[in-house]
C-alpha cells in the first residue's frame, strides 16, 4: 500500500503544530529573558534586540555558578554511588531464584513507591541528630537511597539477559563471587549503566525536595533552590529570574541533543521487556 505524498505533508504539519505547543512555554521564557524590563510588548513577540544583562544579573546576584557547582557535585557523586551499589545489589538478586531473593526484590520495589515527603519529618530530625544537615555526604546518601530501587531493578532486568553459563564456567575455574562480578558481569553492564546515569543524573539535577530540607545554607544551594529564591525574592525582575531558569535548563538540553539516542533508549530500557 502506498500513501499519497499529500497525506504525509499533513502529518508533518500536525506534528510540527504539536511540537510548537510543547515548546511554547520555553519560547515565552526566552522572550522574557531577552527583553529589557522596560519593554512592555507582548511576551509572544520576540525582541528585535538581544539584551544579555538579565543573564549577567542572574549570575552575579543569584550566585548561579556556585549553585551549578553544588548541583554538579551532588549529581556526579550520587550517580557514581548508584552505579556501584545498584549493580552490586542487583547481581545476587538476579542470579539467585529463591523465595528470599524474590522477597528482597519486592521490598526494594516497595521502597520505590514511598513518597519522599511522607517520611520527611522523621528523616529530617534523624539527619539533625547525625549532624548531616547542610553537608554533602548527608544529602548524597539520602539521594542515593531513594533513587537506588529503580537502579537495582534496571540492573537486575539486564543481568537476567546475560547467560548464566558464563558464571558457571568461571566458577569451575575457581572464581569467587566478588571476582566473578567484577571481571565477568560488570564489563557487560555498559548499556544499562549509561541508562542509569542519564535517568538518575537528570533526576538528581532537577531534584527540589531534598535540597529544600537538607541544603538550606546559601553556600550549599543547588540550582533548583537558587532559582526558587530568584522567583520568590525578586518577583519584579522577571527577566533575571527567567534568564536563571534558562541557564539551568540549557546544559541539560545540550546533553540531551548530544546523547539523544541513549536518552531515549535509557528511558525505555527495561520498560517494555
Amino acid at each position, binding site marked *: 500500500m502506498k500513501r499519497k505524498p499529500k497525506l*504525509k505533508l499533513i*502529518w*508533518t504539519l*500536525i*506534528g510540527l503544530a*504539536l*511540537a*510548537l505547543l*510543547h*515548546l*511554547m*512555554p*520555553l519560547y*515565552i521564557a526566552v522572550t522574557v529573558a531577552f527583553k529589557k524590563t522596560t519593554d512592555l510588548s*507582548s*511576551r*509572544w513577540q520576540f525582541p528585535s534586540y538581544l539584551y544579555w544583562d538579565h543573564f549577567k544579573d542572574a549570575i552575579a546576584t543569584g550566585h548561579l555558578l556556585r549553585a551549578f557547582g553544588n548541583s554538579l557535585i551532588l549529581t556526579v557523586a550520587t550517580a557514581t554511588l548508584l552505579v556501584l*551499589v*545498584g549493580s*552490586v*545489589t542487583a547481581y*545476587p538478586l538476579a542470579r*539467585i531464584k529463591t523465595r528470599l531473593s524474590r522477597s528482597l526484590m519486592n521490598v526494594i520495589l516497595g521502597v520505590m513507591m*514511598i*513518597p519522599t*515527603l*511522607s*517520611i520527611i*519529618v*522523621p528523616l529530617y*530530625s*534523624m539527619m539533625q541528630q547525625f549532624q548531616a544537615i547542610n553537608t554533602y555526604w548527608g544529602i548524597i*546518601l*539520602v539521594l542515593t*537511597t531513594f533513587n*537506588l530501587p529503580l537502579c*537495582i531493578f534496571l540492573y537486575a532486568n539486564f543481568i537476567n539477559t546475560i547467560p548464566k553459563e558464563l558464571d558457571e564456567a568461571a*566458577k569451575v575455574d575457581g572464581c569467587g*563471587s*566478588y571476582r566473578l562480578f567484577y571481571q565477568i558481569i560488570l564489563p557487560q553492564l555498559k548499556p544499562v549503566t549509561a541508562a542509569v546515569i542519564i535517568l538518575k543524573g*537528570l533526576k538528581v*539535577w*532537577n531534584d*527540589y*525536595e531534598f535540597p529544600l530540607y537538607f541544603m538550606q545554607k546559601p553556600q550549599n544551594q543547588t540550582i*533548583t533552590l537558587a*532559582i*526558587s529564591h530568584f*522567583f520568590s525574592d525578586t518577583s519584579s525582575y522577571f527577566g533575571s529570574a*527567567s534568564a536563571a*531558569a534558562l541557564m539551568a*535548563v540549557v546544559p541539560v538540553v545540550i546533553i*540531551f541533543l548530544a546523547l*539523544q539516542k541513549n*536518552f*531515549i533508549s535509557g*528511558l525505555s530500557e527495561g*520498560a*517494555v*521487556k
Partner: protein
Amino acid sequence: MTRNKYTARLQLYSMCIPAFILFGTFVFYPLLRGVRISFTDWNGFSQHYSFIGLDNYRKLIIDPNIRTAFINTLIYGIGSTIVQNVWGLLYALLFNRKFAGRNLVRAAVYLPVLISGLIMGYIWYFLLQYSGGALNDLLTVFGVGPIDWLAEHRRAVGLILFITSLQFVGQSMVIYLAGLQTISKSYYEAAELDGARRWSRFIHITLPLLSPAIITNVTLKLIGGLQLFDLIVALTNGGPGFSTHSFSTLINYLYFVNQNAGYSSTLGLVLFLFIMAITISVNKVLYKREVEY
C-alpha cells in the same frame, strides 16, 4: 560440596548488604520513627513534647484541608495517569508513522521532560499572569476579557493537571513508541488477511501486546502524580487558600510553616499507606490482563 555451595550463596547475598544498610538507615528507621512522632504534639525542633495518643489521627479525619488535599492528590495522581497514558499513546501511534521531520517532532515533545517541574511551574507563571501574561494577551486579541487563571480553585487544579501532563507526556510517548517496536508486523498482516478493521486490529493486537509498556507507564505516572510537589509549589503554593494542596505540599506546609511536626508526620504515614494501596491494587489488575502471544 554442599558446604561450598552454602558459602558461595552467602557470599552472593552479602553483596546486598550496602544497599540494605542504606534502606534501613534512611527509609525503614525513619518510617518507624515517624509512627512514634505521629503520636506526639512535637513541633519539629523543641526538646519537649508529649504523647497525645490518637489525637492527630482524630484531627486528620475531620480536617477539611486534609479532605481537599486528599481529593486533589487523587485528581493529580489518577488524572495524570489517565491523561498522560491516553495522550502519550495517541502521540506514539501518530509519530510511529513515517513523515518528514518525525524525529524533530519527537525530540520537541520529549524535551520538556528534561526540565525540573519547579522551573516549568515558574515559567508557566509568565503565561498565566493576570496582567501581561501571555495567555491573557492572546485572549484580548480575540476580545475576551483577561482571566485570573489561578484564582478559582477548580480551574487551578485543572491547570496544574494540564501543565504537568503537557510537560511529561513525552515520557509516556517514548515508552509506548518503544513498545510498538516490539510488536511484529506479521500479526497485522495476518489480521489484514482476516479482514480485521483498523479499530479491531488496535483493540485485539496493539493494545494487548503493549501491556508491558502500559504497566510501566501506569506505574510511573501513578507514583509521579500522587507525589506531585514541585510544580504546585511553583504555581500556586497550595493556594488560593488550601484549595490546590496535594498531600506532599500540605505535609511540607504543616511542617515548615505551621511547625506541626507530629501532625505532619501523621499525614505522611497516611500518604504512604494510601500510595501503597493504590499502586498495589492497580498493579494487580494490570498484571492479570497481561498477555503473551
